[in-house]
């Protein structure tokens, strides 16, 4: 790769108002380092503390989802600590607000489960979302739900977003046998 490619890449990112972009392997340590840089980028921007906290929260939920659920894992699937999985995360400023976009490969068999979880959120008002969040918080954890978090992650992002969450599934360009799961949140 020549230096020109890198400077073109940087120029395009700047033009698209990209605040942060990372594509590669995610781990808890990588998230902690990203958290530090995202916080300092946000501190230098002209936004309210409330919005800053919401962007930060959505970033954490999205990147921890990648660590827990991406189908491309460097670590054995049975471990629950020190997981390393692949995905990407982008934060950019659009005319609608700050947009967070996360992608990660998933298995075909995960599509239905994710769709069932995310589709209802799209039709919910903020009041509905807060109510569903409270109900989920009080629910006993079900060991069969395949959720390593509390099932609260998407509800947390939806609660902080200013528009319904967008999500889609698309064949991975580099591997047609795998599906890319993308979530977009406007804060």
């Amino acid at each position, binding site marked *: 790769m020549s230096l020109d490619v890198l400077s073109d890449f940087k120029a395009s990112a700047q033009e698209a108002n990209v605040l942060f972009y990372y594509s590669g392997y995610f781990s808890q340590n990588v998230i902690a380092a990203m958290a530090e840089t995202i916080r300092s980028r946000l501190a230098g921007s002209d936004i309210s503390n409330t919005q800053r906290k919401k962007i930060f929260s959505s970033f954490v939920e999205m990147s*921890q989802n990648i*660590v827990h659920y991406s189908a491309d894992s460097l670590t054995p699937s049975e471990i629950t*600590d020190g997981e390393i999985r692949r995905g990407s995360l982008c934060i950019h400023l659009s005319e609608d607000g700050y947009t967070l976009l996360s992608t990660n490969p998933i298995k075909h068999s995960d599509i239905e489960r994710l769709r069932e979880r995310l589709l209802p959120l799209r039709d919910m008002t903020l009041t509905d979302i807060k109510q569903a969040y409270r109900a989920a918080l009080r629910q006993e954890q079900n060991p069969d739900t395949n959720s390593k978090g509390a099932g609260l992650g998407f509800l947390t992002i939806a609660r902080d977003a200013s528009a319904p969450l967008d999500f889609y599934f698309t064949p991975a360009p580099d591997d047609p046998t795998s599906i890319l799961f993308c979530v977009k949140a406007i804060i």
Partner: protein
Amino acid sequence: MNHLRIPASPTTPEVEFDFSAHSLAIKGESYPENASAFYQPIIDATRAYLAECGGSAITVNISLGYFNSSSTKLLFSFFEALNNSAADGNHITLNWFYDEDDETILEFGEDIQEDFKSLDFRSQIIELG
């Protein structure tokens, strides 16, 4: 156990539970990779301590600037354990410190207050950085 002390890390809070002084404090940020692995031992130690207490005045100080969804779930279990003990006769004051711009943490505090009525819940605005 008389003392449970866990230093803060970039993604986990400082835990300072001085059981002999009936003083429990959690402070910092909470987004560990595995919230159960972090909080379950803390909840278990607290339950064991509470089982030995009767009619004690216990102070719990929580000042968290941020916690992720899975930490929220575990904190809820922690407060539930405190509430059960308060219903059994301990007097438990829960000081809930939050940043005034943080509606999420304010609302979570309101939920705790609503669900766990045996706790003497006091919320306080503080600059959490």
